[in-house]
C-alpha cells in the first residue's frame, strides 16, 4: 500500500494550493481528483465565465464606439471560436497546475476517492484500477455542486447548470435564469450581450439579496434594465413544460401564476457542499445542518488528522477563501501555528458593472454598534473612468467615526474587481481614513477614487463638493475637473 504524509482530495483552488504548500513544506503529497485538475473554478466557474464575459464586453464595446469616432462594420460573433479560445485559457491554467504538481514532486491520481476508514482511502481510478492508499493527514477539498430545484432537473439540454451554460453554442434566443444571485447575473448578462433575450426570476425582493451593499446592487439593476434584461422579483419558478419548440416556464408572482417562453432554462439558485460524498459520514466526520463539514479555525475536522477546506467547509464559497484555507491547513499539518485570522474575505461579482466589496456594510457596522462615517466618490468625477467610457458607479468607504478605522469598502463600477484589493489590504492592516487619503495615488487612475472616498468620509474631498453638514453620507455634487 502506498503511504503519504498528506492526501488532498480535490484539485480545485483549495486543494491544489494546499497540495503545493504542503509539498513546499517538505511533505510527501498525493492529490486525488475525479474530474479535472483545477476544479470548478478553473474548468467551469471563475475562469471560463470571465473569458466569456470579456468576449461579450468587447463585442458590446466594439458595437458602440461610433460616438468616439470609431466605426466598425461586419462585427461577427463566431461562438465556436470564442468557445475554443475560452477552452485554451482554461487549458493553459490547468496544465500550469499539473506542471506545478510535477515540479513540486506531488503525485496526482485521477479517480474517485472514498474513505474506508479514517486512516485509509479507496481509489477508483479513472483507468479502471482500484487502490487503497494511506496518509497521515487528509485534506478534504471536494467542493460543492449546483443545487437542483423541484420541477427543474438538470438535463444538460433544456435545464442547464452554470457548467453547461458556459459552453452554449450557439447562443440561445431566449433564456430564463432562475435565481438572481451572482452566477445567474454574470452568465445572464453576457448572454444578453450576445443577443439572447434574458429573463431573470428571483424569488426574493431584490437581486443579489443579502450579499452586498444595496446601493451597489441598484446600479447593476438599473443597467440590466437599460440593456433590456427582464428582471422579475418575487417570482418563484414552479415548473416548465414543452410547448411545441418552446419551453414554457410557469411562475408564481404577486399577481398570480404567469408564464414565460424560452429556449433554455438556467438554474443558479446556489451550490451545496459535497459533504455527502466520500463516505465522510461513515467515518464520523461532523457535518452541520447546512451540510458543511465542521472545522475549527485551523480547518481541522472533528477527526484531528483530517482537515477540510473550501466550499465543503463553509461559506463563503469563494475560490480565494478556499486557497487561503488550503495554505493554512497545509501549514498546520507541517507543524506551523497557522490560523484563519483574516478579518474579511473580499468578494467580487462580474456583473455589468462589476461589484466588489470587503468588510462591513453601513448597516452591518451600525448593527455592531459603530458610529459610522461613510464617504462616497462617483466614477463620473474620475478622469480615468471618463476616458475609458465607463463612468457609472461609485466607491463607498465605511469607517468608524470615532477612530477613522476603515471597516468596509464597496465598489460598483468598471474594474471594481481590480480596485478592491487595496481596500482589503487597508482593512487587514488596520488602516484609517487618513492612511488611505495620505497615500499618493497616481493620476490619472481609477484607484484615485479610493483616496477621494476616504477624504469624503472625513468631509473634504477635492474633486467633489460636499456641503458642510452633519450627514457625511449625503450624495455629492459632481464637478468634473480632469
Amino acid at each position, binding site marked *: 500500500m502506498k503511504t503519504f504524509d498528506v492526501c488532498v482530495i480535490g484539485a480545485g483552488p483549495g486543494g491544489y494550493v494546499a497540495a503545493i504548500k504542503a509539498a513546499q513544506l517538505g511533505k510527501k503529497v498525493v492529490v486525488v481528483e475525479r474530474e479535472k485538475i483545477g476544479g470548478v473554478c478553473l474548468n467551469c466557474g471563475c475562469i471560463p465565465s470571465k473569458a466569456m464575459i470579456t468576449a461579450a464586453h468587447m463585442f458590446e464595446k466594439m458595437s458602440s464606439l461610433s460616438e468616439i469616432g470609431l466605426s466598425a462594420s461586419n462585427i461577427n460573433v463566431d461562438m465556436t471560436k470564442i468557445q475554443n479560445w475560452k477552452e485554451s485559457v482554461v487549458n493553459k491554467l490547468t496544465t500550469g497546475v499539473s506542471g506545478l504538481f510535477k515540479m513540486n514532486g506531488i503525485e496526482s491520481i485521477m479517480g474517485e476517492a472514498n474513505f474506508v476508514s479514517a486512516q485509509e482511502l479507496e481509489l477508483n481510478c479513472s483507468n479502471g484500477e482500484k487502490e487503497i492508499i494511506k496518509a497521515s493527514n487528509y485534506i478534504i477539498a471536494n467542493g460543492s455542486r449546483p443545487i437542483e430545484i423541484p420541477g427543474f432537473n438538470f438535463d444538460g439540454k433544456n435545464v442547464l447548470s452554470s457548467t453547461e451554460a458556459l459552453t452554449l453554442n450557439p447562443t440561445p434566443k431566449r433564456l430564463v435564469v432562475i435565481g438572481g444571485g451572482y452566477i445567474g447575473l454574470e452568465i445572464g448578462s453576457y448572454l444578453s450581450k450576445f443577443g439572447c433575450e434574458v429573463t431573470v426570476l428571483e424569488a426574493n425582493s431584490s437581486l443579489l439579496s443579502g450579499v452586498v451593499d444595496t446601493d451597489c446592487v441598484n446600479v447593476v439593476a438599473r443597467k440590466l434594465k437599460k440593456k433590456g434584461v427582464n428582471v422579475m422579483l418575487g417570482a418563484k419558478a414552479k415548473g416548465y413544460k414543452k410547448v411545441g419548440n418552446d419551453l414554457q416556464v410557469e411562475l408564481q408572482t404577486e399577481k398570480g401564476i404567469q408564464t414565460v417562453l424560452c429556449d433554455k432554462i438556467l438554474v443558479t439558485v446556489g451550490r451545496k457542499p459535497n459533504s455527502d460524498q466520500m463516505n465522510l459520514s461513515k467515518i464520523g466526520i461532523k457535518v452541520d445542518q447546512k451540510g458543511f463539514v465542521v472545522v475549527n479555525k*485551523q480547518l481541522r*475536522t472533528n477527526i484531528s488528522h483530517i482537515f477540510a477546506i473550501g466550499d465543503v467547509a463553509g461559506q463563503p464559497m469563494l475560490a480565494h477563501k478556499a486557497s487561503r484555507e488550503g495554505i493554512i491547513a497545509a501549514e498546520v499539518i507541517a507543524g506551523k501555528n497557522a*490560523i484563519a485570522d483574516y478579518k474579511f474575505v473580499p468578494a467580487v461579482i462580474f456583473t455589468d458593472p462589476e461589484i466588489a466589496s470587503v468588510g462591513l456594510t453601513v448597516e452591518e457596522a451600525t448593527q455592531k454598534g459603530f458610529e459610522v462615517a461613510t464617504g462616497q466618490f462617483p466614477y463620473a468625477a474620475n478622469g480615468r473612468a471618463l476616458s475609458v467610457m465607463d463612468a457609472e458607479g461609485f466607491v463607498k468607504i465605511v469607517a468608524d467615526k470615532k477612530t477613522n478605522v476603515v471597516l468596509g469598502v464597496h465598489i460598483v463600477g468598471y474594474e471594481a474587481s481590480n480596485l478592491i484589493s487595496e481596500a482589503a489590504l487597508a482593512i487587514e492592516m488596520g488602516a484609517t481614513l487618513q492612511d488611505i487619503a495620505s497615500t499618493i495615488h497616481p493620476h490619472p487612475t481609477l484607484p484615485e477614487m479610493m483616496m477621494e472616498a476616504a477624504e469624503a468620509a472625513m468631509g473634504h474631498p477635492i474633486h467633489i463638493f460636499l456641503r458642510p453638514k452633519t450627514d457625511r453620507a449625503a450624495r455629492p455634487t459632481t464637478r468634473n475637473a480632469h
Partner: protein
Amino acid sequence: MAIEFKLPEMGEGVTEGELVKWLVKEGDSFTQDQPLVEMMTDKATVEIPASNAGKVVKLIAKEGDMVKVGQTLLSMEAGVGAVVKPAPGAHASPPPASPSRPAVVQTASAAPVESIFPPPAGAHVLATPSTRRYAREAGVDINNLTGSGPAGRVTREDVVKASSGPMGAVSMGAPTMARSAMMPARTPTKALPTATVMGSNTEERKPLKGIRKKIAENLVRSKQTIPHFTHVDEVDATELVAWRAQMKEKAAEYGIKLTYLPFIMKAVSATCREFAMFNTALDDEKNEIVRKHYFNIGFAADTPEGLLVPNVKNVESKNILQIAKDISELAEKARQGKLAPDDMKNGTITITNIGSIGGLYATPIINPPETAILGVYEIVKKPVVINDEVQIRSMMNITATCDHRVIDGADAARFLKKLKQRLASPQSLLLEMI
C-alpha cells in the same frame, strides 16, 4: 480641580495590595467603570474600576508599590468627556465590577476537536496580518494587548514587549498542565514550539512580581516554618473508575462533566471528620490550633499565570454533583484569571492532582495556615495479588503531606488508610451521604 482617587475596598479582610500594572497613562481620559489599575491582593489580581468618568492628572503610586486601602492611587479631574481607550483587560477582575468589553471572538461551535492557543485575533483587534502572525508564533494572545500605534493599533513592538514580559513568558514556555478525569476537563491548548526570538547564549531577566511573587513568598514561608512530612499509600481505584464511568452520563444530564475530584473531595471531607487534625489551621501568632467545623477543600489549579488554589466551600453539605459544578466553575474562573479573593480564602485542606501528567508521587508544599495537603496521582492498571492470584487492578498512589507540629506520622497513616477504604468502595459513601 484635581481630586484624589484612593484604593477602594477590594474584599473582606483585604487591607493592602501590590500595584501590578497601570492600565491608564497620565493624561488619559476614562469612563465610569473603566479599569484603571491592576492590583494584586492575597492571591488574586483585581482590576480597580473608575468610580466615575475623568482624566488622569498624575499617577501617584508606582508599579510594584504596596498600596493600603484608602491610600491615594492617582489624582484626576472629574467629569471630562471620556475618550474610551480599550483596557488591556483579560486579567482578573472582581465579578461585580467587570468592565463591559467585547468578548474575545472564539468559534466555540466550530471547534469540535481542539481549541487553539492563542485564540484568533478578534474583530476589534487592529494589527497587521504579519503582526498577528508574529504574535501567534510567539504564543501571545493578541486580544489581550493594548496597541501603542495610531487608533490603538497593536504593533510588532507591542508583541515583542508582551512576549518577553511576565505574562507572555508564561504563555510561551510552560506546557499547560494537562488534566485527566481528576480535574474538570479543559480542552488542551496546543502551542506549538517556536524558535526563540533571540539568539542562543543570551539570558533574559524579568521582575518577580504579581502572582509569581506571591506564590514565591507563600511557599518560602510554608517550607521554612512548617516541618513537612509525607506519607505514601496506594488505592485500589478499580471500582471508583467503574462507578465514575457509570455515573458520567447521569451527571451529563445535569450538564455536569463528572470527574474523580468531587468524589475524592467528598471522601476527604468524611475522613477529615474522623481525623479532626487534618482540618485545622495553626495560628502561629497565638500558638493555637484552630479546629474547623467546615470543610472548604482547595484544589491546585494551574493557570497561565501560575498556581492558584481556589476552594470548594462547605463540601460536607454538598452532594457530588454540586461539588462537581463548583469545581468546574472555579477552574474556569482560574483559567480566565477571574478568581476573586474570596474564592481562595478560608480553605481548610488542599488536594493536588498531578495524575494526568504522570509520575509516581510528589511531595507538595502545604498551603498555610492549613496543616495538610493531599496528593492524588495517575490511575494505572497494575498486576495486584489478591487471594494469591494476580489480578489487573486500577491503582492510584495517594499522599498526605502534613504539618508535623500538628499531625503525627501514625495519624497520617491512619488517615490515609481510612481514606483509601472509602475510595476503594465508592458505595460506602452512601452510608454517609448528605
